[in-house]
């Protein structure tokens, strides 16, 4: 088990190993739900919550169920089941307490299940052999990083609504360009923290 301080993991997963800007995971909802800052914030929060909880639970299941029973070949199925169940519960909770956000997120809320950033974080956590605390902060940090990235894109896209874009690059095209520029900017942070 690598002895990386949880604090380093936390900041690294937000900044230098950002799920979107350095791993390019979870792009689908990142591009679709980023036209409005408020909605992006809601989705970011939901993804962060799911990521934190499922990464930790999957860590526990991996170490206390999968490894002792030697059923590593079933691990992907089990991770996805855990993620799907949590998204279901989250969906019911949001329907009850934040119906407005629930309606705005629409299909992208259940689609958090197939957000590859979430499975990605679980798999990285297993491959890098993190401990309990490390996994918890890694999940939380990755979620916050995803949230930060979608909020930055949403903020820029809200500004761009008033800008005159050349025809043909408005919509997804300009979002990709912005994401690329943001990713390059984030390379500037590399070297501050390293977890890989």
């Amino acid at each position, binding site marked *: 088990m690598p002895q990386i301080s949880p604090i380093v993991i936390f900041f690294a997963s937000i900044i230098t190993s950002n799920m979107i800007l350095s791993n390019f995971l979870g792009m689908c909802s990142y591009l679709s739900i980023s036209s409005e800052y408020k909605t992006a914030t809601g989705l970011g929060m939901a993804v962060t919550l799911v990521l934190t909880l499922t990464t930790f639970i999957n860590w526990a299941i991996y170490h206390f169920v999968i490894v002792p029973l030697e*059923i590593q070949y079933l691990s992907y*199925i089990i991770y996805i089941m855990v993620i799907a*169940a949590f998204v279901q*519960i989250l969906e019911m909770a949001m329907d009850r307490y934040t119906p407005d956000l629930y309606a705005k997120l629409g299909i992208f809320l259940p689609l958090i299940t197939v957000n590859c950033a979430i499975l990605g974080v679980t798999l990285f956590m297993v491959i890098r052999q993190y401990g309990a605390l490390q996994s918890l902060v890694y999940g939380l940090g990755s979620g916050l990083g995803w949230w930060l990235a979608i909020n930055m894109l949403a903020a820029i896209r809200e500004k761009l609504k008033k800008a005159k874009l050349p025809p043909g690059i408005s919509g997804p095209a300009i979002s990709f360009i912005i994401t690329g520029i943001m990713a390059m900017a984030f390379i500037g942070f590399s070297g501050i923290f390293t977890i890989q």
Partner: protein
Amino acid sequence: MDFSVILRAVGSLAVISGVLSVMISISEKVLNNYGICEIDINNGARLLKVEGGSTLLNTLAGEKIFIPSACGGKATCGLCKVKVLEGTPSGLLPTEEPYINQEERKQNVRLSCQVKVKGNMKLEIEEELFNIKEFICDVEDITDMTYDIKRVRLKLAPGETINFKAGQFMQFYSKPYGKVKEVVFRAYSISSKSSEHDHIELLFRLVPGGICTGYVHQALKVGDKARMSGPYGDFYLRGNCEELIMIAGGSGLAPIRSLVYEVIENNLPHKMRFFFGANTLKDLYYMEEFAQIQKDYPQFTFIPCLAFPEAEDEWTGVTGFVTVALEQQIQNGEGKEAYLCGSPGMLDACIKILKDKGFTDQTIFYDKFS
């Protein structure tokens, strides 16, 4: 392969998914449980006690209040509007926004398929919608009016009543018969008097290949049960005028007959002229009845028109399409309202003539067969 490996794999998967399902069920019980909610409709006109958690549209349908909906609750038709005065913590949802205009927003109009029942609510719905019910009736009588039109008289279940405005229609459900396996519903205007609350009469003209009219003409028998819902529609008497011009063809006579009775039974002062178009004498029906009304009530004039009278018909009335009679007998649209029911071709031709004579969209009301 070692048996214990299979057992381990299946067992662990089963246990994990079992635990997860239990967690989901518990959260559903906790999060989706809104208890018994009270819904107050039209300021106490009806009080419902319902189980919360479902959409308003489905909840009301469960209580036999049918809000019209064409899309079945997917927020794509925008028909299922109701006024929600109290009981929704959230504002307009993004899914509703395209269908609710500024005026309606001020009045708290919502799409009932998007609003969930989460607590006690106060609603306002149109009185007509409130009246829409489902009826299981007994077929009391089937009469041949012409060679292709049958009149079906239906008796409502004991204790049940219907309140409709003359001119409105019912949706009649067919049953599987012969080679037809499907159940369809079609709209038919009510031809009986609106003062009669325990019976309704519908006219069915046989449509070649039509499933619903085919069912009525071939399979329906006296004593059968028939299912229908209603009344629907905004084709009814406005009466802001001196004279009513009524125009019908074929089974379009149904709502007009009801309208005529509404005027004479309520002693309304309107003059009425009823132009009834048909091809030959054997397409005409209810002749004696309308002749009798004309005799008893001088305010009513009946003008049957035959487009293609045969020699043996010895026809002495108006010959030609209804449009010819309209052209000749109506001078202008002043003080008049027009009520039309029939095939699209006939209606379009008549509406064109009426507009030329000075009728407007506000004084022409029609029910087009489609």
